[in-house]
């Protein structure tokens, strides 16, 4: 499925959740990285190429919105899907206005998650292709 090597980064302070979701995504052939805080997320991003981030809105310390803003500043092409509970939908929507690709309501249906993940990845790859084409046609 993932033709080009592609990394998914899961960011959530609930470690059991991150572990289980990682295992499921790995089971369908994804390469998954995990972070339990916004800070850790940014550290991984600085060192590793990531295509799509699944980012929890509500985390202690640096929350999802703040993390998203920092991600978009440093890595504008990375696609972000906001993971949200019912109480934080407003924040997730704000996240989409700040450049997140979509949002997922917790507890998310796995099929839906995979679908959104694939679409986000596709968008990123298309954007990368356009950039490559533009660079190739440079005089």
């Amino acid at each position: 499925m993932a033709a080009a090597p592609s990394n998914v980064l899961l960011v959530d302070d609930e470690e059991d959740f991150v572990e289980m979701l990682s295992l499921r995504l790995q089971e369908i052939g994804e390469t998954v990285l995990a972070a339990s805080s916004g800070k850790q997320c940014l550290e991984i991003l600085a060192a590793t190429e990531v295509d799509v981030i699944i980012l929890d809105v509500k985390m202690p310390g640096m929350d999802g919105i703040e993390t998203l803003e920092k991600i978009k500043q440093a890595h504008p092409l990375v696609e972000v899907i906001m993971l949200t509970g019912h109480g934080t939908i407003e924040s997730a929507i704000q996240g989409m206005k700040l450049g997140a690709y979509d949002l997922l309501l917790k507890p998310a249906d796995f099929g839906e998650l995979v679908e959104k993940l694939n679409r986000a990845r596709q968008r990123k790859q298309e954007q990368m292709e356009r950039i490559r084409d533009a660079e190739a046609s440079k005089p």
Partner: protein
Amino acid sequence: MEQGRRVNGIELLLVDDEKDFREILVKRLGRRGFKVGALESGEAALVRMQEQPVDVIVMDVKMPGLNGIEALKRIKEDHPATEVILLTGHADTQDGVEGIKAGAFDYLSKPVEIEHLVRKITQAQNKIRRFRAAQQETEFRERITQQMVVAERLAALGTMASGVAHEINNPLAVIQDAAGWLQQILAKPEMEGMARRADFEKALDRIHKAVQRARRITQQLLQVVKTQTAELADPAGMTDVRLRELAEEAIALVEAEASLKKVAIHLESRAPHPVAWTDPYQLLQVLLNLLTNSIQATPAGGRITVSLQVSVEAAKIAVQDTGSGISPDHLTRVFEPFFTTKGVGQGTGMGLYVSWGIIARLGGLITVESQVGQGTTFTITLPVKK
């Protein structure tokens, strides 16, 4: 209902055994604008009070059979709010004093001076009017207080329930994905020959279904809480809704269920085209919920009436059934989350809670009245466009 009839006027009755006196007094009072019924004995007055009580009685003390004082005592037992003016013999103050002790409004001695009697009757009428006004005010205040208590209770419960729902959602997600992971593994080709494979699949399926059920509950809870915190609904969803069409749609959707239970549903509208300013989809959800509840509570041969009313202030939709009714101690709790009298697995107790949340968010009010064995009425009050 009885109150409605009584509020309209104050009924007056004259009781005296002397026919001529009665007729003259009825005529003279009639000329002064009083409509008076007349009876010839204390016994007749008691019968009348049982059948069709009056508010003010002018009664002679000296009558054969049951005298005025005795009749007064008996009337006051069952009708403490009825005022009795006694007519005593000339200079017979003893009877008058005894009458006052027994609860008479006042006494007048014969021969009666008409102006004096008119003044007394008017005073008694005023007293009754004041009493009724005070009674209505008390009832109104009690109703408002009760509604406030219910609303506060629901808000507090909602806060707690949403906290619980939030905390439950995280472990639920873990359970869901752990079970989902195992299902994925089972689906791998290399797992095909696994021992007791069907048992694993069965157990995982049950876990999956239970998680779905728990998810629905937490979502409903959080939906209501969202409605509480978001104050009013998004005005974009609000529009002029024709209530008759909406009610017809709701009735059509539950018709099959109702006819299966042999319950008839009627739609009544006092206005030709009742319209409310609201969100049609959310209102339909609430109506369906109320109708389904009513159908379940109503035995075969019963009847559900949906009635629509509009005024310049508000639109009202009432769903009235001839079902089993709700006992008074349950009545204050029907809007609480998880409150149900149905068996395990039959109902989550969320329907009315969710309905209450929706109507509150639409800027309306939902109230309930019920009589055990008679039936229940839910009334939705919604704003109209000014």
